[in-house]
């Protein structure tokens, strides 16, 4: 689809000014004042404040989904979380203007270098707001919009308001409601008809403060025949206390458009990562979620595609690694709502130590549709004797011309495989690592090259200490 090529990046200097302290802090806990505070800082229109306040009500009303999800959700203390922290800046268009501590953070994460090498645009979010945001100029000329959520809703309401909160309604779940009330940051992207981005746009989400909740909001609209790849990376330092990341990501692929959304998250294991991601696919469009979940204490994420247009196609490719004390509860949702729609789900998970990975899936084909197809494969690999895996797919099919195929397997690396590789001189840990890499290899190939190298390295790191 889209190739990542190298290109020269001509850094444009901006002239913004920053403090090094957080100038804006909504304090601890969640109430109406916090929501008003956030809205006021962002100088939002009344309808948006109203939207936020209604969402707060919905959040309060909705119970935690513990009737099907893990009881660990009860350990989130919403009263000690800080919901908004920012330096009060406009996002910089030059790395040189990014505050030193923030810049250093992103440099260590390799973002400026990646941008130079192969990206069409970058947005780097530090806690609640973007610290850096830049896109290649020629794309701007073509009418591509790549801004933060605040700017998107303020400067381009005619484009974004129509779809904002429409793919994922506030009341979808407790955490989408939470996000809708306190969201800040994220990417709002619009690609005009026929514009095909040759290089990916990237966002980087960094949690820096303790007891912090990051609630970015992303809305991507690919107009008719447009194509783009969006990549997001996520990290946070390890704190003693828990941190909450709860994003809402809405994708809209209009007729014939193609969106590829790539996530590589490497959260530290104090992060509750509870994310709602969904796409609407119109006629003959294609949406691919490519997702790699490493780290976090608990991840709950089920990217979905509502296949609303004829011949649209949805795909979720996901890799999850659950290490000691971690629970990767991930999956996919495919709602077929038009004829001749196809969907494909491939999910692979690796459970290491006491790690637990769960797959939850939903595939729905209502009646009166014809020629709908779904294929689902879930494979789980267990490394240690106390590793755990679950699979909970739900498949609902009507109509005598639709077909669904679901398969799941659970296996472990065999002692004979390890011995064979040891006989060639690899030690046990290297052998195990190679087996795990082999297990996820066909999915890793789907990631952009720069990411797949990084992924392999991350997997090797995760495998360290898993044997012996």
């Amino acid at each position, binding site marked *: 689809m889209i190739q990542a090529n190298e290109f020269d990046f001509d850094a444009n200097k901006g002239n913004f000014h920053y403090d090094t302290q957080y100038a804006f802090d909504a304090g601890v806990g969640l109430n109406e004042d916090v929501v008003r505070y956030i809205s006021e800082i962002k100088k939002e229109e009344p309808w948006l404040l109203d939207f936020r306040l209604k969402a707060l009500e919905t959040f309060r009303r909705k119970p935690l989904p513990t009737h099907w999800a893990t009881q660990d959700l009860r350990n989130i203390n919403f009263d000690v979380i800080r919901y908004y922290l920012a330096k009060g800046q406009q996002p910089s268009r030059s790395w040189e203007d990014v505050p030193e501590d923030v810049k250093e953070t992103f440099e260590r994460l390799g973002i400026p270098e990646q941008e130079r090498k192969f990206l069409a645009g970058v947005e780097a979010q530090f806690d609640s707001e973007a610290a850096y945001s830049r896109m290649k100029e020629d794309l701007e000329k073509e009418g591509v919009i790549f801004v933060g959520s605040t700017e998107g809703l303020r400067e381009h309401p005619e484009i974004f308001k129509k779809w904002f909160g429409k793919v994922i309604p506030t009341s979808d779940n407790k955490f989408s409601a939470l996000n809708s009330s306190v969201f800040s940051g994220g990417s709002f992207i619009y690609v005009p008809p026929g514009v095909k981005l040759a290089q990916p746009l990237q966002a980087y989400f960094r949690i820096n403060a303790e007891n912090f909740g990051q609630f970015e909001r992303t809305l991507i609209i690919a107009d008719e025949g447009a194509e783009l790849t969006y990549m997001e990376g996520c990290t946070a330092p390890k704190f003693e206390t828990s941190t909450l990341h709860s994003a809402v990501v809405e994708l809209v692929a209009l007729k014939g458009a193609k969106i590829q959304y790539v996530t590589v998250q490497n959260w530290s294991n104090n992060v509750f990562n509870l994310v709602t991601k969904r796409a609407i696919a119109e006629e003959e469009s294609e949406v691919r979620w490519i997702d790699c979940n490493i780290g976090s204490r608990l991840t709950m994420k089920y990217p979905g595609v509502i296949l609303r247009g004829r011949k649209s196609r949805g795909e979720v490719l996901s890799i999850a690694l659950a290490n000691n004390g971690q629970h990767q509860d991930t999956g996919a949702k495919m709602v077929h709502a038009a004829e001749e729609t196809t969907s494909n789900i491939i999910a692979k998970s690796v459970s290491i130590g006491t790690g637990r990975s769960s797959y939850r899936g939903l595939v729905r084909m209502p009646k009166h549709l014809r020629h709908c197809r779904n294929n689902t494969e879930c494979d789980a690999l267990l490394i240690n004797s106390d590793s755990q895996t679950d699979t909970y797919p739900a498949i609902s099919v009507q109509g005598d011309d639709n077909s669904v195929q679901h398969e799941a397997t659970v296996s472990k690396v065999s002692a004979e495989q390890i011995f064979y590789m040891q006989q060639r001189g690899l030690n046990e840990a290297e052998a195990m690592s*190679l087996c795990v890499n*082999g297990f996820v290899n066909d999915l890793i190939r789907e990631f952009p090259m720069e990411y797949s190298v990084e992924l392999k390295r991350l997997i090797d790191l995760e495998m360290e200490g898993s044997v012996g």
Partner: protein
Amino acid sequence: MNSLKIKNLVASISGKQIINNLSLEIPQGQVHAIMGPNGSGKSTLSKVIAGHPDYEVSQGEILMNEINLLGKDADDISRLGLFLAFQYPIEVPGVSIANFIRAALQARLPEGETIKAVEYYKTLYSKMDELGMDRKFTSRSLNDGFSGGEKKRCEILQMSMLEPHYCILDETDSGLDIDALRIVSNGVNKLRSENRGILVITHYQRLLEYIVPDVVHVMWDGKIVRSGDKSLALELEEKGYDWIKEEIAA
């Protein structure tokens, strides 16, 4: 003189004794063959030498160039220079041959050094050509969905890439047709050298027509019962294993 020396070895698995006081010495530069009927302990011997964790050694020594191999992990033994070509090579899905051999070579380098990709592929491809292997082979998953012949060729490819001091070929002829047998044998013969000892384990004499051994041993009930030159293999072929059985009984 350098050699792979096995002295008075007794080994068992799950409490069942398989190797009964076996002694054997393969000097560098020589090719030895072990023949024996099914269940005589041939494959067990190769796994014990290679350090398979399921086997328990209660007595004896295994010395490779005077280094004791007993108690060492399988990967240490491999890096010391012992190569075992498996009778049934294990399938490892998703791991390509090229990456696997590269990882094995990398494991032999001192820390900080890395394999040079260009040279590596040059060597790999030339060895593959010798074995009549298609280049496309390198991107296939290790032994995954391979035919019997492909698996055995892949074993010989690994052997020639890792350049071991001693090689054990466990029933490498099983499952091979005559053409594959010839190619595999040629591969092994190319590896014959002053600095290398080779032990060929086989049930049939056929393989020894292609890989001509210096010494032939006959294994029975977990020990070596006869040794001789290559004519022993012919004699065995002619008279069958029952002959040995009678000889021992006598």
